């Protein structure tokens, strides 16, 4: 078994339960922004992609790394952007236009 597998498994299980508890509390009102935000957070894969694209490797690994950087970073940028846009639209009826 590779180094770190068991500690990664601990982290995975704990994060899974934590995610379950936190996300269960998100109102159905915000389920679309929730999906956009988790997409943006998931795009943290970009940090792995940056290393694959930039370290000494083969031409193939550099190309694949660069594809991954572009795909993940577009999710990060687009995901945060659209989440914030959506959330700005949610207003209460009491407060009229500021």
């Amino acid at each position, binding site marked *: 078994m590779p180094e770190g597998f068991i500690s990664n498994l601990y982290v995975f299980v704990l994060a899974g339960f934590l995610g379950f508890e936190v996300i269960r509390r998100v109102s*159905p*009102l915000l389920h679309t922004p929730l999906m956009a935000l988790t997409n943006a957070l*998931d795009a943290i894969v970009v940090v792995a992609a940056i290393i694959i694209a930039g370290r000494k490797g083969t031409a193939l690994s550099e190309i694949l*790394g660069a594809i991954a950087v572009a795909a993940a970073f577009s999710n990060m940028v687009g995901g945060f952007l659209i989440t*914030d846009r959506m959330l700005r639209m949610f207003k209460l009826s009491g407060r009229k236009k500021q």
Partner: protein
Amino acid sequence: MNTTMMHLSSYQYLTDFAYIIAIAFFILSLKWLSSPATARRGVFVGEVGAAIAVVTTFFNPELVQFKWILIALLIGVIIGIPLGLVQMTAVPQRTAMSHAFGALAAAVIGISEYYMRIPHITKFEMVEISLEVIIGSLSFTGSLIAAGKLQEWLPQRPMVYKGQNYVSFTVLGLAVASMFVLIFNPTTAWFFPAMVIISLIFGIMLVTPIGGADMPTVIALLNSYVGLTAALLGFVLNQKVLVVAGALDGSSGFILAVIMCKAMNRSFTNVLFGAFGQLQVSAKGEEEEKIVHTASPEEAAAILGAANTVLVVPGYGMAVAQAQHKVKELYDTLTKKGVDVKFGIHPVAGRMPGHMNVLLAEADVPYDKLIEMDDANGEMAQTDVALIIGANDVVNPSAKTDQGSPIYGMPIIEVNNARTVMVIKRSLNPGFAGIDNPLFYLDNNLMLFGDAKSFVGNIVRELSGAAVGA
């Protein structure tokens, strides 16, 4: 040599701390998303966490060239910004596209790791990489197909053929078989690319048969697959920030998928392999004459204007007709007249979880007027008028009464218990799932035939005209 080692290990501490901070911020981000009041703060901490992680990564001493990274980041920005600025009606297909990008990123990293590590790869690593690449590849093509259906480049009807599930499972079996060959002989020529290609094909076969009405569940399921892929990649690379982010994303998608399934009274297996909306059209042969009551915009306006409480039930049809802004005008006009207007939102209304809420929020409808199904049903007895705009199956009473109905047992918004029901619809054609709706023939139901946008517009004109005249 020694200084590089030192450099590497001190960098390792730096990244570990930076990534832990990022993880904490991500969790805080999701926690703050629980309420609209704190949600934007949540996005902000999420951005800060991601920025800390990305910037720290740039100081990794392993990095020897930056040109391609910077070009790729720039391409990411060029693709990402338009995807962040799409119309709210296009959010479901945008979400499917971002699932595809997320899966693509994770899958190609797994592929690159395989080629970097062979021939020195353990059986255990081979299992991790294979699972990661299989799930990532099938989520990539599956999400592309979902996006194509939502964008209506592909037919939204379920596409099925005889023995389809057997064929699909055989294809998945081939991918798994390739994985086993690779575990014992990691360098067997062509098995790795074959496994990738088979998984890509399976993704297409998995989503193609699924109809548009099931998209909310499919999108949520794909969301959880993408999260799982990222978490598996974290295992492959021994990178805990990916494990956590993937687990959070995966559990989020999974919870949403469960909610969607419950809201349709169906199981995952049924959604994925049931090809909903295929067989129903048959049923009932008795073509008895049913009486349908209709009303004009004038009559509808008069009834709405005289009501104390109105519940609007929107559905995908409202999005298709782009009627949400007219609906907001109707809300304003009625509210000004002292009518209490609320919106009853069924969990699977629209094409993704929460779709209707975002559309109405964009049209400036206050979110405290958007109520959930159970609350709407609780208030139904006191509701004077239920106005259904572009929804069908989610208000179909046969889900409660007709055991033979394909949607029997699905929780619905029980608009038939309101004093008057009005349904805006183009014609009596059955909806997406091809299920007849007995609501249309009830005595307290009025059909308002026409395009949702122009019909609501006509009602608004009547109401304002009447107000001027009075």
